[in-house]
């Protein structure tokens, strides 16, 4: 191709053939270097933190019902407990299967917050379920969909920002 021909091609308007080449390119990059699947969730979490001015709790321990190690991404089995700690609270949650007539694919969460009464929210996917602790710091949330879940604690006593936990698999 001569330089003049190339210049004419470059100055030409984008047509259907170009659009198809670009569509092919899009499919090519999607296949060879796809966006990591959890990326948008991680971004949303970061943005939530930034918006809430929230403190992130640490995942402290995983109490295993059986023995042996287990990958974090595996769902918690019934009776397994996890503990989160932050500067103001600790939160222990235990996952149970709930009553027999509970909707399938859901779990019951029994929790215990130390550090004072608080509103507790669990976020799973697009769903959010809330409750408050009793005087002893205990709470129960029924029929929580399985999936990647985070807890948000809002203390009753102070105007401090909420505490949010890392995600666990229910």
């Amino acid at each position, binding site marked *: 191709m001569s330089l003049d021909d*190339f210049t004419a091609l470059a*100055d030409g308007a984008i047509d259907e*053939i170009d659009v198809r080449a670009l569509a092919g390119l899009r499919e*090519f990059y999607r296949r*060879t270097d796809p966006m990591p699947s959890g*990326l948008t969730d991680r*971004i*949303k979490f*970061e*943005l939530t933190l930034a918006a809430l001015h929230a403190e992130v709790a640490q995942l402290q321990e995983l109490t295993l019902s059986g023995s042996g190690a287990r990958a974090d991404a595996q769902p918690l089995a019934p009776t397994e407990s996890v503990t989160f700690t932050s500067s103001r609270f600790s939160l222990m949650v235990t996952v149970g299967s709930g009553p027999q007539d509970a909707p399938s694919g859901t779990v019951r969460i029994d929790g215990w917050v130390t550090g004072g009464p608080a509103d507790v929210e669990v976020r799973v996917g697009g769903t959010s379920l809330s409750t408050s602790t009793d005087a002893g710091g205990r709470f129960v949330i029924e029929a929580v969909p399985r999936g990647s879940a985070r807890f948000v604690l809002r203390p009753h006593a102070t105007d401090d920002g909420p505490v949010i936990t890392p995600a666990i698999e229910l």
Partner: protein
Amino acid sequence: MTTPASPTLADRAAEAFAAYREGDRERMSELVDLLTPVLWHTARGQRLDQTSAEDVIQTAWIRLVESADAIAEPQAVLAWLITTVRREAWRVLKKDGRAIPTDEFPEGEVGGIPASLDPAAEAMLREDQRSLWRSVSRLSERCQALLRIIAFVDRPDYGAVSEALGMPVGSIGPTRGRCLAKLRSLLTADPSWSTR
């Protein structure tokens, strides 16, 4: 001749962003779902590894939330994010003493595409995709990076995005420009690229 235009990526982003700015905070999540894929390909096109690419993209989103009110036109949010990711990527490359992709011809891994795909990945590609890959890998790094971004936006948005990327836009609309013209001439010369 003209059919009612369906909203483009930039339109949908502008709508969600405008609603977010007016107080509908939930719409930010929609914006993240809409625009993160093109930002991923923007960052990876600048030769960032996966972890750095994720960091740069997160930074751009945080910047957007911090400076949401400074963006004059919601329609500009797509171009603003792409530009921010590119600048952040350059900052990371510079800090690591690496070069920003230029018009130099490729050597080794460029634009996020390995110079030779691994056999399993290559086996998954159809013949026309292999042909496309052969042609793309002969473009300069800068061209690869630009076309990779353009490939993830809708046609009516090419003009605005090209402009943000410093590519010339003709008076009657987006022209091919050098990168797309080069790709097209390579593809046309490849008998296994079908123009079906």
